[in-house]
């Protein structure tokens, strides 16, 4: 039970971070002091739920929130 709560809390926290800027999952894992593998799973869930999304530099990949992604793409697609 507590695990569930913790996970939901962590998910929420992850979303807060992702909303600030695009992250490399490995960097975020260090900041949040969780195992990268664990965070990979959480991030994947958030992506599947449509809350988070990938942002790709072509050679490397980041994760951010869906809203932040739209904001970023809007900014850069304008002149």
């Amino acid at each position, binding site marked *: 039970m507590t695990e569930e709560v913790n996970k939901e809390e962590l998910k929420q926290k992850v979303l807060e971070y992702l909303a600030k800027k695009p992250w490399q999952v490995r960097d975020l894992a260090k900041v949040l002091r969780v195992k990268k593998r664990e965070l990979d799973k959480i991030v994947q869930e958030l992506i599947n739920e449509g809350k988070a999304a*990938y942002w*790709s530099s*072509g*050679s*490397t*990949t980041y994760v951010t929130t869906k809203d932040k992604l739209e904001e*970023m793409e809007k900014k850069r*697609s304008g002149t």
Partner: protein
Amino acid sequence: MTDVELPETPLLDELEKGPWPSFVKEIKRAAIEQEKAMKAGKKIKLPGAAKGLLKVLELAYKEKRTHWKHGGIVAVVGYGGGVIGRYCDLEDKVPEVWHFHTMRINMPSGWFYQTKALRAICDAWEKWGSGLTNFHGSTGDIILLGTRTEYLQPMANALAYLDKLYGSPAPFDIGGSGSDLRTPSACMGPALCEFACYDTLKACYEFTMRYQNELHRPMWPYKFKIKCSGCPNDCVAAKARSDFAIIGTWKDEIQIDQEAVKEYAKVIDIEKQVVKKCPTGAMSWDGKELKIDNRECIRCMHCINVMPKALKPGKERGATILIGGKAPFVDGAIIGWVAIPFIPENELIEKCCEVLEAIWEWWDEEGKFRERVGELIWRKGMDEFLKVINQKADVRMVYAPRNNPFIFWRELNQ
């Protein structure tokens, strides 16, 4: 004559001249025919894209600079790679290509096609994109060049149902980009080449299928490439262009057909063209018999290349694995180096998977952002890497032993 009007492109027109086939003609052709197809009632979602590209490219030629900006969008549900986002910085002048994203499509092993499959891709891309392609991108994927964000998912769906919707013999899936497993590629191997020491097409297909998750959901420090070449000629440039190069080779004797050698002797100078060119001097020829000292042979392929009817790789076949190959960014270019001298053919795919998974786990844990596996090994040392892949050191991994005694005796200094 066409009734389609093209923009003026005096600089690009120069590149329609000359004997080599012209990419400018291709862009113009797409511009003209896509518009015609639309006028004829075909569904075309992005008319004018190729025309827009002509305008942007002409300006690039005039100003000697690019007009593209990077976009990070992937926008295909479930996938984190395979789309390269592009926006044009001339949106007001050339709105047709304001969005011009590329899709990378996973090609079949060895780049073999039925025309039915290619036609289906063409039909879908005529409808949902610019009608422009690359056969192929330098990683090996089919490149579909230029569409808008909102058409990425429908085009991905068109490919996923290419059999049902467009009559292809099979659907096509999206390839890799970003920090993921890039689309693996293979030389034509046993399909056409008598030198192949293992089934490159099968290996490539197996890796691709087994690692769909790694290919589509980037989670590593950086990209990872696997390439399969059937022999040391390395026709897909695996040694230089992949982190994990699988190079076909053999352990026993080169197979010689002495009669066929004599036939060659009638048309070429065997002493000069073959024996003298052997890097280890492993061969001799007395006009009747070609001898090879197979303990000296380093399987460089030269003699076999010159006399393919007479010489064949040995029968005890398998592959050498080279690790770490990459382009110069950031720490300099690397040609991969020997990580596993030999894996027998019948164990090859399983063993490679075991090793790949061990490498990925280590690299994912230890790798820094944008650190390729080769660079991580430099940072951590071959001794640690060998533990990860569970291999003993072998003199074949180096040209020469180290020339300094500054050995880190980690086990004595815990």
